[in-house]
């Protein structure tokens, strides 16, 4: 579909990025790049996965989900179950975490999309709280003390591969019939339904994909920090993801990459603020809404169509 020149460009870009990541990874193993920097880079990748997947639901589909950390928690704990308790290999644990989170997203979506209005927000928020509450009460998973001893299986290559895969999946879907229908549902769900779109099924599909990616991100996160506890997945974490989505811009995958990167870096730089640091995130969110509601890369709705077009004759502007 792409013109040869465009294809060359993107090949060059991705090839160069991949080479750079592999180089940093190898330098890190040789001890030439600090472990701190490596960790930040991995956190950025994980946050990109979380942000871009949430953007699918909140940006493209135009719904309002605010419990994304719940899916992340499912991914983290299920994968930890596989590695810590059952001593199974990490790739399998990762897959299981992602699938389990996708399954929960499906469960959440069924009642949420049967009704209408703002109820998805309150149901996803509830789901988030119930998951945290449940983990708190399961001794086998460490309860409120958390679950230590996860193997350090996540590394920069894993994060890079899964971030790239997630973005590819999201991009390809968004620039297909599915993406067009999602945006149409956002514009007018009744008109979309009357054009033959099975609105509920399409909404569920988006939520399940988003949940699955968030689950994979959770699994990566757990095996990066090697210690998980329920409070790291509460509603505050979910709100953080929303900040990244809206900072980058709704309905823009490039925006999500940018938003997640900037926010993660900023939060690292603000470590000195100590207990005042958590005040910054919500302030940013409020300021974005007041001052630049479209986010950094947020496109005006008329431009959105251009983003979704499967074929591009003109140069890439986004």
């Amino acid at each position, binding site marked *: *579909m792409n013109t040869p020149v465009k294809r060359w460009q993107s090949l060059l870009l991705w090839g160069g990025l991949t080479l750079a990541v592999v180089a940093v990874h190898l330098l890190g193993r040789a001890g030439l790049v600090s472990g701190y920097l490596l960790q930040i880079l991995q956190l950025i990748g994980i946050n990109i996965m979380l942000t871009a997947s949430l953007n699918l639901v909140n940006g493209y589909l135009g719904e309002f989900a605010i419990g994304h950390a719940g899916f992340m928690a499912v991914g983290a704990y299920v994968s930890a179950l596989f590695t810590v308790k059952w001593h199974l290999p990490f790739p399998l644990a990762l897959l299981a975490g992602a699938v389990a989170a996708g399954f929960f997203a499906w469960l959440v979506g069924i009642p949420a999309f049967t009704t209408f209005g703002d109820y998805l927000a309150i149901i996803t928020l509830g789901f988030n709280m119930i998951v945290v509450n449940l983990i708190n009460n399961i001794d086998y998973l460490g309860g409120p003390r958390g679950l230590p001893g996860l193997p350090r299986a996540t590394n920069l290559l894993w994060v890079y591969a899964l971030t790239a895969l997630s973005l590819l*999946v999201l991009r*390809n*879907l968004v620039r*297909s*019939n*599915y993406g*067009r*229908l999602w*945006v*149409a549902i956002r*514009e*007018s769900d*009744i*008109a*979309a*339904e*009357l*054009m*033959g*779109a*099975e*609105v509920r099924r399409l909404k569920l*599909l988006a939520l399940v994909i988003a949940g699955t990616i968030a689950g994979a991100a959770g699994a990566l996160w757990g095996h990066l920090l090697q210690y998980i506890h329920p409070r790291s997945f509460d509603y505050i974490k979910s709100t953080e993801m929303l900040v990244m989505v809206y900072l980058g811009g709704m309905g823009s995958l490039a925006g999500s990459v940018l938003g997640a990167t900037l926010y993660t870096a900023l939060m690292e730089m603000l470590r000195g603020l100590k207990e005042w640091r958590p005040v910054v995130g919500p302030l940013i969110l409020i300021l974005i809404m007041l001052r630049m509601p479209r986010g950094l890369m947020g496109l005006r*709705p*008329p431009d*959105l*169509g*251009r983003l*979704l*077009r*499967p*074929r591009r004759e003109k140069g890439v502007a986004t």
Partner: protein
Amino acid sequence: MAGMAADRAAGPGAGAPPHPAAPPLLEARGVTMAFGGLRAVEDFNLTVQRGELVGLIGPNGAGKTTVFNVLTGVYRPTAGRIFLGGVEITGLPASAITRMGVARTFQNIRLFGGMTVLENLLVAMGFRAGYGLWDALVRSRRFREREAALRRQALELLDLFRLADKAERPARSLAYGEQRRLEIARALATRPRLLLLDEPAAGMNPQEGEELMQLIRWVREQFDLTILLIEHHMPIVMGICQRVLVLDFGRTIAEGDPRAIQSDPRVIEAYLGQQEVS
């Protein structure tokens, strides 16, 4: 799914009464739609044969749009049954009814304003895109071929409606009359057998109305369609409808030849105080 529905629709209807010939394309029997205590439509009966162009008129609030909403599955009727080509469609979801060949436009234009003109049509073709999730994920050959084909079809349709040069513009940037045309084109993109037009000439001046009338006539022949038309502008109704149904307070008060209807005292009375009769 859609294919199955079409097969069923083509065969002799299961729930339909025994007909010597093919069953009527659309049949509504005793349809009533109540909201709480309010009966927006009561005991509505309508039979539309294939190829007919039937008008649905009546003063504001007579229940015309509600009839459309029931026929297209937006509302589930409180009582009564609806058949499409002899197959019962009562209570089916709106998307399923669209897939079986009923398309509509909206009284208050409901385009996907932020999407391009072309994409508006592609959305309407979405249910017969012909590729699945996997094809989209890996950009398979089938995906590329089907996308190209859908695009071609959409552009052809836009061409017929003189909108091809605006294909890449956001739908909301179109002029009013163009938006009305796009709504009809979008409905046709679902490949309907039955087209429901809800006041297509609303907000148009007489000349635009006249052009629209031509367009509707032409569309009907070109696409071999059956049309049910809600309209306020009497000249349009009189000009192109073969048969007219008059609703008032949810009830059918008259039915028949347009000219006869015009002089029917009940109709005149229903329209008293309404300025739009002419």
